[in-house]
């Protein structure tokens, strides 16, 4: 144990050093890449479509069932204790503040994070990233920047759609299953509504998009070891993306609420 401990500390120091060096390089590369608009701008709209528009069905599917379950659960909790129109309050608040951004973020972390990590990982292990470098095309400007910007812009758009659909699904459930009128649901929804609820959720989702895409790109560009390495990179991108979403969720709650 006394022999192993210094070795472990030295290994940790070396890993920390490597992490700091890699992180520093990424920051430098990101600055250069952002300035190289001629390279990343043509890639931006295709990436916004791939990472954002193509993710809408998954996000809406999730939102529909979240809205339904929220309405049913709140009615179950409120029966004989709280007026039933508060179903509208709970559905709206929960969807706008938390479930819309976080569940959409998680779903997109799976879809976007894995997609980006697998694509860039495959390019790395088949030497396409090296080829870009030898052609003097910056991989950060050509591959990373358009994906990160696209995800940061499109996560809030997809989340806004998911919020709307989640609340509508809650309303539909309340009216058709819980015998609540539309006016009552609306009264509950409006009672504690603040505009901040909307932008708080959208700011969170933009930050989720930023970290999910960055994580996917980072894991992909550092993939090694063929198909198995690409699989590992995709898995790590999803797991770390989900963890980052939860940490950021707590961070924004502390900072903005």
């Amino acid at each position: 144990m006394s022999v192993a401990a210094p070795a472990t500390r030295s290994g940790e120091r070396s890993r920390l050093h490597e992490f700091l060096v890699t992180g520093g390089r990424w920051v430098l590369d990101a600055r250069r890449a952002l300035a190289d608009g001629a390279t990343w701008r043509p890639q931006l709209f295709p990436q916004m479509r791939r990472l954002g528009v193509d993710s809408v069905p998954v996000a809406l599917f999730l939102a529909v069932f979240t809205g339904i379950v929220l309405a049913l659960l709140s009615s179950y909790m409120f029966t004989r204790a709280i007026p039933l129109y508060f179903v509208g309050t709970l559905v709206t608040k929960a969807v706008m503040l938390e479930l819309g951004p976080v569940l959409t973020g998680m779903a997109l972390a799976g879809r976007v994070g894995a997609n980006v990590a697998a694509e860039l990982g495959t390019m790395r292990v088949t030497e396409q990233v090296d080829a870009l470098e030898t052609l003097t095309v910056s991989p950060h400007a050509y591959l990373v920047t358009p994906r990160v910007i696209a995800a940061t812009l499109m996560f809030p758009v997809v989340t806004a759609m998911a919020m709307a659909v989640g609340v509508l699904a809650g309303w539909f459930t309340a009216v058709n299953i819980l015998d609540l009128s539309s006016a009552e649901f609306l009264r509950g929804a409006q009672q504690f509504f603040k505009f901040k609820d909307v932008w708080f959720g959208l700011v969170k989702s933009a930050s989720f998009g930023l970290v999910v895409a960055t994580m996917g790109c980072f894991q992909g560009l550092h993939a090694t070891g063929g198909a198995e390495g690409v699989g590992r990179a995709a898995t790590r991108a999803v797991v770390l993306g989900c963890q980052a979403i939860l940490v950021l969720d707590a961070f924004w709650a502390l900072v903005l609420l």
Partner: protein
Amino acid sequence: MIRFEGLAKRFGTKPVLADLTLAIPEGQTTVLMGHSGSGKSVALKHIVGLLEPDAGQVVVDEMVVHELDYEGLKALRRQIGYVFQSAALFDSLTVGGNIGLGLWSRGFSSPEIAQRTAESLRLVELPEAAARYPAELSGGMRKRVGVARAIALRPRYILYDEPTAGLDPVTTTAMDDLMLRARRESGATSIVVTHDLRSAFAVADRIAFLYQGRIRQIGTVDEIRHSDDPVVREFIGERNP
């Protein structure tokens, strides 16, 4: 002029290059030959700064590659065309897009890109391939597009990493002819990494035999063919039964 000066590189605990010293003469084709895993491709990647040495250095036109800053490295890479072992074509781009990307990054106009793309595709005998995607091409065609991508840049140096690996004998001969034609027409200094003896003897002006991370012997095709070195003789013998 490219020089390897005491280049050493290890991956984890495994040394790949140990004190590699070699000068590449201008305007000639030098073949780096050796067993699989002897560090040939690793040496090539140091020339364009894709890897950093653990010790020693690579000097290109009196510039130490690993000491170059971002802009310096970009300027160096503009002098070099690199043909990858797997061709490394971009799946999402057409053949024309693959060839045009490097030209676009060097600031060429669209008509110039179209003209150079057509010329280089003619040189590799794939004049109709510009609109096709890499997935629609055979292995040999992909390698030829890789060569076209490199020579379209009209570089001073062309680096070929295992250009004939995985090709049948007929396609290998066609690739050898292509390398000779590319050198004749561009006058570029070429380095070819290969363990394919027939191909090495066909294209080389000089052959450097790499063994255990060092140059074991260097000479003309005839000198290598008639080498007295037991390691080189064994390599030639085992490849030419």
